């Protein structure tokens, strides 16, 4: 499904602050797998997601989605295959547009946009139904501008937008990190429900070790731009928060606090 082959990216090459973000990273994710990516700050988690989505151009290496090479494909072309939820709720939605218009944009992610009317009755009804799953009342606020929603509501909307249309690959970039614990729980539960129901191939970056233990079928730990540890199957079922934290080369309080 997703395959990263010896991906390499160096920032500020040749300068004193040269930084190797991805150091020959290899990773593959089977169809339907739910991978949880952990690692300390600067381990290359965000660089990896950016490389997959196309926002970051690799120095060398290859990225394959569903067997086809997307390494040289621009972001907007890859969008037909993958969907992404960002950490910052502001990034994943268009603030000055309405909830329904945002849903429409996501709806057309993998289609050709035509000169037909965008929002029609059929679509509005389906958006209403899809948003009602969240239980946040968003289904009654289709005409509300997104910048009037709370951060949690915006992030929930981003999630519904991302999972709609069953993307080949779902990328979640610490998507609950900016939310309060209760909202984070709502968004996380909605995420797991959608991933299970639609059997989405998912890659989730998180600093929350409890989430890494509770969810997903595989834990992938990055360090210095490569995979340091992979925990799958039986072992994944038995792993604990302390096991995971033990593997961090740089221990930060943030991980313990977040768990």
């Amino acid at each position: 499904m997703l395959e990263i082959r010896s991906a390499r990216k160096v920032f500020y090459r040749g300068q004193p602050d040269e930084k190797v973000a991805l150091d020959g990273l290899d990773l593959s994710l089977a169809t339907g797998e739910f991978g949880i990516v952990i690692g300390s700050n600067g381990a290359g988690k965000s660089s990896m997601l950016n490389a997959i989505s196309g926002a970051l151009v690799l120095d060398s290496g290859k990225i394959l989605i569903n067997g086809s090479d997307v390494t040289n494909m621009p972001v907007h072309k890859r969008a037909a295959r993958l969907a992404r939820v960002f950490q910052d709720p502001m990034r994943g939605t268009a603030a000055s547009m309405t909830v329904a218009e945002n849903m429409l944009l996501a709806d057309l992610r993998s289609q050709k946009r035509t000169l037909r009317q965008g929002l029609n009755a059929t679509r509005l009804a389906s958006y209403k139904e899809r948003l009602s799953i969240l239980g946040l009342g968003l289904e009654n606020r289709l005409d509300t501008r997104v910048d009037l929603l709370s951060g949690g509501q915006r992030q929930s909307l981003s999630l519904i937008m991302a999972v709609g249309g069953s993307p080949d690959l779902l990328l979640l970039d610490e998507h609950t990190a900016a939310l309060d614990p209760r909202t984070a729980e709502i968004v996380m539960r909605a995420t797991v429900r959608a991933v299970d129901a639609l059997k989405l191939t998912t890659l989730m970056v998180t600093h929350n070790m409890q989430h890494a233990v509770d969810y997903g079928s595989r834990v992938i730990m990055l360090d210095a731009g490569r995979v340091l540890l992979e925990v799958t199957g039986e072992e994944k079922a038995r792993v604990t928060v302390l096991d995971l934290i033990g593997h961090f080369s740089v221990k930060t309080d943030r991980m313990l606090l977040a768990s």
Partner: protein
Amino acid sequence: MGFIQDVLTSFVAIIPVTLAQSLILAFVVLGIMIPFRMLNFPDLTSEGAFPLGGCVCGIMLAAGMAPLTGILVAFVAGFAAGCCTAFIHLRFRIHTLLAGILMMTMLYSINLRIMGKSNLSVFGSPTVFDWVPFARPGFPASKIVVAGAIALLVFLALYMFFRTEKGTAVRAVGANPDMAEAQGINVWAATIGGVGLASAFSASSGALMVQSQGFADVNMGLGILINGLAALMIGEAVVGKQTVWRQLLAPFAGAIIYYQLVSFCLAAGMPPPDLKLATGLFVLAMLALPSLKRSRGPAPAREAIRE
């Protein structure tokens, strides 16, 4: 009492002339609004695209071409100019305002090259305003009818477009380019097309203006940008900008009100040289108003504009 009566009489006498002029210039205001509000791309190209359209239409008329052909060729030329500005910004990551300044500066030379001289009279050439039946040629009524009809057509077409799937995508590029890209929208195509279309409207306005006034001049764009911006601010203050309908209506309403206001000030005895200062102060006040209103609250989030 006599003074007020004089002012009113001379103001009322030129209302039709001003209305015709404002309907023609409404397309420049539209050409300023589309990049600024729909694409979040503050664009100065119109200052060069307006005379570009005028010069192109001028030589076409002088060469004996049909007036409509002149407008269409001006439209295409303006479109190309706008595309260049957007491309300069996207490809070389040059600030949108600087890209616009570069383009309008270069256009000045291009406009001179096109005409071969700084001024060209096309008085007596046929114009699109001659097509109105029962109106004396050159009379403001025919200009109002023609410019008004085109304005209505353009307004409706744009309104329909921004409600389509493609139109919604273009608006998303202005609202959040990163998000738009992640939703599979080609940000380059939308930006280049959108800014191009806007400059095409500015150029068409120049072409209409040349047919209306009977001559083309390389300096006809001087200050058109600040006038257009002032008109847009008035329009947005009057009809609002919350919905696509209102946002699209604002340039037309604003142009009509603004030019009547200017004509009233002139009738009331304001010296014409002071006009630019007054317009500039007005635009400044309109732009500063939101931040003045909030001055007691916490520092407002800076308006996100593409850089």
